[in-house]
């Protein structure tokens, strides 16, 4: 199970790093197909958000003043900075989670494949 989560996380990292705005969704589709589990959507969503957070952390390590810049960007839209950060994490989570959940259900409905692992909440 942990291996699957780690794999999904790495997949998200690579996809978001190199596939831009499509990355999280593409990685979500792959996650859904590979896991085919009932928890595929949640796994993809969490790992997508985690990957985005990790990539943001890398920006900080490269010198980005994350909070300050988030405040600046948020102010342009009359929003607090933390909303921009949350949106940054939420968007890939919705993309990946939605695609993974949908694809995994379709695969299960037509392929009758059993879940390949149990998610942490049912372990």
């Amino acid at each position, binding site marked *: 199970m942990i291996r699957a989560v780690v794999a999904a996380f790495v997949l998200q990292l690579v996809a978001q790093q190199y596939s831009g*705005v499509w990355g999280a969704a593409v990685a979500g589709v792959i996650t859904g197909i590979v896991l085919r589990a009932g928890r595929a959507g949640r796994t993809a969503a969490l790992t997508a958000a985690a990957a985005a957070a990790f990539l943001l952390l890398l*920006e900080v390590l490269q010198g980005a003043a*994350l909070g300050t810049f988030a405040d600046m960007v948020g102010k342009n839209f009359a929003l607090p900075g933390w909303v*921009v950060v949350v*949106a*940054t994490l939420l968007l890939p989570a919705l993309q990946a989670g*939605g695609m993974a*959940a949908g*694809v995994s*259900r379709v695969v299960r409905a037509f392929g009758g494949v059993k879940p390949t692992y149990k998610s942490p909440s049912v372990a």
Partner: protein
Amino acid sequence: MSKTTTLAFAALSLAVGAGTTAVGAFGYGALPPLGRLLSPTVGLWANASAEDLPASATARIAGLISTVDVRYDQRSVPHIFATTDLDAMRALGYVVARDRLFQLELQARAGEGTLTELVGAVALPADQETRRLGMPRTAERNWQQMDTTSQIGRVLLAYAAGVNAYRASLSPAQYPVEYKLLNRAPRVWEPVHSLHLQNRMGYTLAHDPVELELLQARALVGDAAARALFDSDSPVQEPIQPAGDVSPRDMLTALPAPGAPDTAAARLVASFTAPRARGSTPLAWARNADPLVAQARAFASNNWAVSPARSATGHALLAGDPHLELTLPSIWYEVHLVVPGSLDVGGVVIPGLPGVPIGYSRQFAWSATNTGADVMDFWQETVNNETAPTAYELDGAMVPFTDTRIETYRDAKGAVVGTDTVYYTHRGPMRRQGKAWLSLRWTVLEAGLELRAFYQAMHATSAPAFLDSMARYYQAPAQNFIVADTAGVIAIRSTGRYPIRADSGRGTTIRDGRTRDTDWVGNWTVAQYPQGKSPAQGYLASANQQPIDPAQQSLYLGVDPNFEIWRALQINRLLRADSAVTPEAMRRFHTDPGSVRADRLVPPVLAAAQARRAQGDTSTSLANAQALLAQWDRRYTRDNTGARLFETAVATTIRLLYDELTVSGKSAPSVTPSESRLLQLVVDSANAWWDVRATADVREDRDALLAQALRMAYDTLVVEYGDPATSPWTWGRVAPARPSHLLRLAGFGAPPLPIDGGRGTLNPSVSSRRANFGASWRMVVELGADPTIRAVYPGGQSGNPSSPRYLDRYAMWANGQLDSVRTPRSANDLTPADIRATLTLSR
């Protein structure tokens, strides 16, 4: 769970995933593509961490003759060491684009009238104004007619090559943040874009439809009263061209009372403002006359120079501070160009223009202020067809238009958001104005050699040679160029093309377009330009005042509303009082809080309040206001508490005073005379202008109106800022500087900082919801054997809001300090400790 239910959930999940992905990639309606914006790797966050000035970098520019060495000093100023002038221009284009790519495009589009293609239909009115004035047509024609193998043709091409080399090196993740917010990509920079930008500066500095303002005034208060306010000289003369006076010359003649409307003018205004064809708005070419807006518009500048005999160091001194809208990034970008044997100049450039408008060389330094000359005239035309004209009447015949352009405005996706037809007579663009047709002639539309002027002047070796280069080529917008050199010469010349009119010789009436007899008949000669060279008084100064005392020369150059007297009076007062001027004193003068305006207008306001109270006015507000104003030392220091009251009282006075110029149903005058007219009125206590029309049964005099304005101002400010007894109206709190982002994005604007200065002072910074104006660059140069330069501008070299170089000069500017400017002769003159970054450019 049934298969149907599973599929339903699957469809729902996929909709969420696909929907957010689609919105993320493409946006939806007004929602921008959030995925592109928020992606940690390619979105906004990429701009947060991007090291926009790496310690060492290399790049290629096609066409470069040899390697160019660029060294950024610790102030992030690029020192460009090249072997040819054209290589220096290529490098200049590259380094400017590197820091200011979005600004380059935005400003050029403003002059091109294509802002809608970048920011959408919100910019349509601005683009329409630009194109109806004929500005893009002029730039396009100038470029088409330019020999691309000529000196300036090659300079423009070289500059564009530099800009485009940088642009081509960028991945979408590296685009400036503004492009990401607008979901746009940088466009290719064409040489003509520099010419569009040049025209834009002409619009900013020489757009002066004085005849429309006079016409509106005549329609309201009659010819005599209107001309006294709008078609006359400044009431105090402290000219740029030294007149040999030891003090300003007052001409405080009595102003005629507002009279009956001039019916002919009223009919003309009515015909101009009658609702009619598309593209026509009421007196659309006129300036915004709302006193609040007018007061916020502080397009102004100072420059002055001191002869060695009056300088404590024995060297000529020069100072300059152009006042423009304060934006982030700044309108200026600081550079230094070195081409051995040809060029060694530094100073500030306008991103997009390959020249140094204000700066220094090894031999001299120069600065500029706006002349304010009237160089825009209007003619009423008669056309052959009111709906689709093809010809206009001229000397008894219908002659075809010289040009007819269909202007098409497009949005960012290429969709048409508007169209216009702009006709051109032999004078210039013509537009429908209500029921009438007006054409205009404007020197800005007939200029085009300004870049050549700057380029030649940068190669000059003395102050007189610099001014002569400028005089030979420079036409618009007219500028008061001041220069001082290491030989001790100081000189100034109001340089530009000044038309000579037929008939009255003045540019204050709309002329009959049916005859060539009303056309311009020539231009001033250079000898007639306002100028001075090393005068006996030991200094020269300009601050947008009337350049020549009419007692010295009566040629028409412009009218009082185009000029301002306050800062000229103040700088002359300071310079006259100092017979041993130091560079440090010059620095202090830039932010000197003294105000001749306050010194001359506060006493009558206080006297009026005192008189009214003596007559029985028991208003507590008036008593409090009087006490507060009396405590003020009339200096605009950041901690003073009286200036805000005075400023609001003046604005209120003007609104009440010129109520006769307010059209019924409006709250503000249609046109507003210059503030200097107050000097004539305060010495004329019973003048009918003081009477307020709304109080038909009472005839107010000066004291009544001034006291009323003071009381109203006090009450207004109590509501706005609280009781001054408990919440003082400290100037730094209620009138801070606050440069805003070019796109008015609140998050990318500067935080408010208190400053010394205000309207009428040498540092007339004003900030409001509408605009922020002030000293956009300050420079003090001591012309010793090796010139010493100190300078600053508000903001920083980088255009990236997250860069540490975006605002690094702001606090220094706000405090009135100056930074030492490095002037290395070669790259080796900079030690490693001096260098912040290097850039090597090769073919």
